[in-house]
């Protein structure tokens, strides 16, 4: 049978590989590389809404580093990510270990655990907003009825409490992702290893620490990596709950970039704020990928 030129070309491995990769490349270029390059250009220009602007070097970065609100947002982002990641990991792991046991209605419980993760963030956050409402908070009502408080708690109006509140919602939303991913990791661990360890006299803690944890570590690192990236660039939750207030106390990189770029129309400054996340995130990602490789090669 004679083969056409296309078939012959596709028989070459490198040509076939190129064509198979092409759709991904196009998508990555269009939706990742182009917006990124455009963001870099904006950050180096003085573009404002409706005015294209021209190259001004690093002036925007000088301006934002001198901006006290930006420094607050940067610090908030780091604290927000660090604190919520620790809680999400601890609670997620605990939940995964519980779900890994055998009990009645296990699959139902697993499905329900995922609910916070499945509901669109804006919707669930609006529900939280009502629960934290300055006047009608259901928490305040409950605590008041239980005689725990005698004046209202200002959940979103006090800077520290507002930060704690948004962190709590983030943890609530993020735990299912950890739990389910770690559960998948737990199920790949061969039960024989646990049995062998038990026969050798290892107690429950020793079995976890010397068998489960080392084998779960690669999965954990990947989950943490994803979560850190997501949390660092979080937007919806803060935007809905506080809009960055009170008096900028809960701004994160993304919300402040949005306020400056989209709200105030200073596109170039907003782009510079978003881009300022990049080096920090890059460091975190490089470190984690290096660590994952190290763990896998052990």
């Amino acid at each position, binding site marked *: 049978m004679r083969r056409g030129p296309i078939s012959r070309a596709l028989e070459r491995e490198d040509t076939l590989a190129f064509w198979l990769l092409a759709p991904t490349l196009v998508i990555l270029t269009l939706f990742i590389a182009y917006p990124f390059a455009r963001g870099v250009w904006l950050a180096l220009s*003085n573009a404002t*809404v*409706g*005015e294209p602007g021209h190259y001004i070097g690093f002036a925007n970065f000088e*301006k934002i580093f*001198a*901006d*006290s*609100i930006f420094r607050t947002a940067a610090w908030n982002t780091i604290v927000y990510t660090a604190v919520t990641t620790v809680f999400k990991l601890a609670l997620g792991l605990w939940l995964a270990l519980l779900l890994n046991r055998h009990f009645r209605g296990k699959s139902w419980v697993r499905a329900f655990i995922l609910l916070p993760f499945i509901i669109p963030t804006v919707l669930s956050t609006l529900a939280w907003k009502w629960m934290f*409402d*300055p*006047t*009608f908070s259901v928490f305040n009502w409950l605590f008041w009825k239980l005689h725990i408080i005698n004046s*209202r708690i*200002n*959940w*979103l*109006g*006090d*800077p520290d409490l*507002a930060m704690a509140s948004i962190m709590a919602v983030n943890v609530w939303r993020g735990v299912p992702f950890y739990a389910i991913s770690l559960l998948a990791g737990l199920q790949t661990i061969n039960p024989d290893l646990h049995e062998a360890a038990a026969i050798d006299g290892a107690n429950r803690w020793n079995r976890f620490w010397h068998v489960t944890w080392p084998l779960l570590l690669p999965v954990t690192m990947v989950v943490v990596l994803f979560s850190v990236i997501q949390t660092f660039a979080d937007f919806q939750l803060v935007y809905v709950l*506080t*809009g*960055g*207030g*009170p*008096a*900028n*106390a809960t701004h994160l990189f993304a919300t402040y970039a*949005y*306020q*400056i*770029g*989209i*709200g*105030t*129309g*200073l*596109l170039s400054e907003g782009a510079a704020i978003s881009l300022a996340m990049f080096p920090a995130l890059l460091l975190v990602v490089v470190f984690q990928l290096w660590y994952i490789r190290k763990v896998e090669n052990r």
Partner: protein
Amino acid sequence: MGKFTRRKFLQASGAGLAGILATHQAPSFAQQASVHWIKWNDFVPASDELLRKQMLPEAMKALGAKITLETVNGNDLQPRVTSAIQSGTGPDVFMLFNNHPHIYGASAADVSDVAEAIGKAQGGYYNVAKANTQDGRKTLSVPWAVIGAEIAYRKSWFEEVGYPEFPKTWQEYHDAGKKLKAKGRPLGQTLGHTFGDAPTFSYPYLWSWGGKEVDEKGKVVLDSKETLESVKFMQAFWKDSFDEGGLAWDDTNNNRAFLSGTISATLNGASIYIETQRKPDQYQTEKGTRMRDDIRHSPLPRGPKGQFGFHLFQSHMVMGYSKNQKAAKEFLKWIHTPANYEKWFVSQKGYSTPPAAMWEKHKMWDEDPVMAPFKIAGKLGLSPGYAGPPNRKSAEVLTKYIITDMYAKAVQGMSPQEAVKWAAGEVQKIYSGA
């Protein structure tokens, strides 16, 4: 009717297509102009209903154009206009607040012809309307309305603490608020990041003490003795008299708090009172009487340097990217025709004050004395950026909530000196920038 054969169809459609190709124009029915208008969700919902059900169908009939109305939360208008301008596509007519037209001036179609004719025919625009919509070269937007901001208060509660008349000065208001808060009926005010109630309080409060963002020549003068005094006073005032949840309020929270009987007074448009009129039996006082009969309105109290007001101003920008500018302008002309505008204005029941002087004489103002303070809101209000001319810089200070945050920081515990220094520094950065 004769049979419509395949041959006839081909002949007709072929000729039609040839015609379109020859003239480079689709037939007129395919070209019906359309106008996409975006505005805020009105705090008087009946007015949006009137527009949708009655006025827009009338406009479509009169203008032969399709008109689509989209309403969004007021806080979402700025993000929407930014993305529309950047992508070069979106609504044809945008509602904008206060001095925001100056931010988007480069992307506005000149509406001088429309606005001038309306202003002239309706007794002349108020200064606040002119300042917010004209940049010296063109008219950026067509003035629509002023949402008068007055303090809505519970008359009987103020009487109980010894104020049969509403407090005239900040000191008196502080005193009344302290007594009210002690009875579990604090004053309510947002110092949050929200477009209306926050700046319409913080700016005139600052001005009444003699503090200003810039002087007449545009020099930043915020860091002054007067500003400092205003911040010092606010620290104690807030703690003694206000519901401290206000730091997290948006424009809707104080309405709910007032209507539920949690607060005794709040700076607001007339929407609280109008809501109690709409549902008189739903909103009741603790004595079981109608709340609407216990609500009165007052301007903000007087400070050492006078009494000031800043009222949310609204105008409509025809976007430069719009392919329907002509139809959009025709629509604005149509809706501002006194006979049409009057219907909308009356449906607002005084919540909106028109931007031109002619409307002060309208009979609607005589119907309800409780609404009378709103009649001249447009006449007395100033623009943010006072005492300088409104421009892009003052609009940036406004959208970054710097003046509001100065007070919010102080009531959260920052020293007044530091709060003023911080705000003055931020304002200086904006005014000295390119």
